[in-house]
Structure formats: structure tokens, C-alpha cells
């Protein structure tokens, strides 16, 4: 289903884009609905799309032979799904599955790349957003590594 500018403008990813930039982005986006359990991609597959999640929840996961899938992270409304297409070899690092019913905007990575190459100002704006997503995920991963909620090994000066 085609996307109109006003729909796209309400998404967090699009905040700050001009009306003409929104029009160009909307022209290459489609609105999709995914049933719970729908798998968008698997680890190792060719990364050819990105999604802007409107509602619902998508899990990033990893297959481990002989074990349940590992749940890496979940994404929700306002989040962008799909960064692996940005750089070669453009293969997915993780899998992605809709945990509940999801609505999203889907964009072809080839169309986004063409748009960025033909309009450097829009390309700059989109690149900043992809970078913001990547930095946010990196910082979140670092915080999770800290294991902040683990029981303290000791409490200085106290037998609490």
C-alpha cells in the first residue's frame, strides 16, 4: 500500500525532514501489516529492506543449533529495523520476527540508496538518522553488558 506524507511525518524517524523530503521518502515506502509470528528475515540473508515500525513489536534473534533461538533485542513503535544493508556485504547479522501484529513502513534499500545518491541533502539527513539508530543500539548494548541490576559483590563500608 502506498504511503502518504502525513503518515510518514508522524514517525519518529521522519521528524525534522522537510515536506519535499518527506514526499520523496514516501514515494519509495509502502505500508505493510505483519501477522504475529511473521519472519522478516534470517541471519545471513541478503539485506535488501528496512522498516520503520509504527505499531507492534519485532524481536531480533539468533539461531543456535540444538537450542532455542536467542532473543537479542526487541524493537517497537518509532524504531527503525534494518541497518545491515548500509555496508557490504549487506547480509543480516540477526533474524527478525514479528512477536505481535505489526504495522510498518517498508523501504527497499536499493531505492533508499538511489535516493541518497541523487539528493545529497536528503542523503545526509537519512545518514544522520541511521547513525543515530546505530549509536543508540551500541550504547544500549554497552549498558546491558554492565549488568547494572546484578547483586553488588560488596557494599563499601557497610554490611547491608
Amino acid at each position, binding site marked *: 500500500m502506498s504511503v502518504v506524507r502525513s503518515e510518514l511525518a508522524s514517525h519518529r524517524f521522519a521528524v525534522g525532514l522537510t515536506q519535499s523530503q518527506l514526499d520523496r521518502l514516501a514515494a519509495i515506502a509502502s505500508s505493510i501489516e505483519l501477522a504475529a509470528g511473521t519472519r522478516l528475515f534470517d541471519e545471513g540473508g541478503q539485506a535488501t529492506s528496512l522498516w520503520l515500525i509504527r505499531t507492534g513489536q519485532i524481536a531480533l534473534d539468533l539461531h543456535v543449533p540444538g537450542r532455542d533461538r536467542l532473543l537479542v533485542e526487541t524493537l517497537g513503535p518509532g*524504531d527503525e529495523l534494518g541497518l545491515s544493508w548500509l555496508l557490504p556485504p549487506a547480509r543480516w547479522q540477526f533474524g527478525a520476527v514479528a512477536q505481535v501484529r505489526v504495522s510498518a513502513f517498508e523501504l527497499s534499500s536499493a531505492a533508499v540508496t538511489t535516493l541518497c545518491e541523487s539528493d545529497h541533502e536528503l542523503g545526509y539527513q537519512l545518514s544522520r538518522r541511521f547513525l543515530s539508530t546505530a549509536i543508540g543500539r551500541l550504547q544500549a548494548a554497552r549498558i546491558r553488558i554492565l549488568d547494572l541490576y546484578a547483586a553488588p559483590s560488596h557494599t563499601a*563500608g557497610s554490611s547491608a
Partner: protein
Amino acid sequence: MNDCRYPVRYRISSRVEETHDTVTLTLEPAEDAIAAFRPGQFTMLYSFGVGEIPISVSGPPGQPLLTHTIRSVGAVSAALCAAQPGQVIGVRGPFGTSWDDADAAGRELLLVAGGIGLAPLRPALLSALAEPGRYRRIILLAGARSPAELVFAAEYDRWRESGAEVEITVDKADARWPGQVGVVTQLIGRAHLDPARTTALICGPEVMMRITARALTAAGLSGTSIWISLERNMQCGIAECGHCQLGPLLLCRDGPVVNFQVAEPLLMVREL
């Protein structure tokens, strides 16, 4: 009025195991009760013969019963966690500042909890839910290490039914977990906050509070609209011994609830 320097005897009336290392104790006075507490305040709980530690009140205000949620991290907290109904412990307090100082009436009330940090926020949440219409929205964002380490998990649906928007995330879960996985700050962008009309109350590990407060200021909240709950080595509870000093603050009196604009520079001083 009781003299806050001496413990008042309370009897444990119920004990609920929240997680493998955390219990919630409900206490009834065995003699004259301590003064009424305000959400965010703490008491000193005394396990006779073992020692005394500060624990925030986690139950609803305005009731004769006192509720505390305690994580076993040392000798005193382990003794309190092991205490059984009928056993008598000592209580001094209540002490310190309150979430009420945030004065969020008419605004969006955002509570951000990390781990057992949900316990000190629970009285503020229950108070807010008891006053429908006092706040434009009530939003709870809570993070935990894993689904098994979520506290008050049985209450989330009830809070939702009472009008709160409740979003829970964990650092790690297996594929059977239907909820969210990630750090609590990632929930902020999904909450559609109105930064100019939001008051945030944060409680959790100090690093988590710093990171969350920064994420909220990046989202447009002013430092004066953000309140955090700080803990140091509280001992006397009446600002005389000085053990809980944080710069110019004595946190047993000037905390635990502190405005982020006041707290932020103090949190960045390594020696404090």
C-alpha cells in the same frame, strides 16, 4: 510522636518472595506506630542482634501497615529477607524527602525504574493511581535483569487496568519471553512524551539513573523536571552522623529524593 533515634517494634504480618533474592515484608506495629510516611521516604529496619539498614517503603501510604521490599545483599538484608511472619523487627523513621516534592499534578507523570528501584517508586505509583484525573498520564517504564527478576510482576496488569501505561523490558530473556528486551532508556523514545509537560521520577542503580536522566534531557525534559532517589551510607537518619554526605547534602535528610539539577554535578565528582 516516637523518637526517631530509637527503633519501634513491628511484627512481620506477611512475607512474599518477589524473586530468588528479594522479599516483600508487611509489618504491623507491635507498639505505637511510627509517623505516617510519604512516598519515596525510607525507614531504618533493624534486625535485632544483626544490624540496621535503610530501606525505602514500598507499600501504599495512608495505612497503618508498613511494606518494605528488601534484596539480600549483605548480612542485615539477608537476615531481614529470612525473617518470617510473627517475627519482630525494629523500625525507625520515616526519614528523608519525598516524591511529593516533584509536585507533578496536572502533568504527565513518568516513573522510570531499574531492578528493585521499582520498590521506592511503588508508593508514588499507587498514590497516583488512587487519584484518577490528577495527572494527564501515568507512565511506568521498568527494566530488570531478566523476567525472573521482575518485582511486583503480578501487579502490572492491575496497574494497567487502573490507568497506567506500563512498559517492561529486561536485559536478557529466552525466546519464550513475550515482552521487550533492551535497556529501559530505549523505552523513552517509544513513550510519546510531551517533554514540557512531563515530570520524571527515576529510581534504580545510580549509573542507570544518570543514563536515564541524560536520555530524558536529550528528549527535551528540563533538569528541574527530573527527580532521582539517591542512596549513600545512611545510618542515623537524622542528619547528625554525616555518613550519608554527598557534597553539601546529607541524604538521610536532604534525600533520598533529589532534583536532578541539584544532583547531576554531585554525581560526576568521583570522590563523592
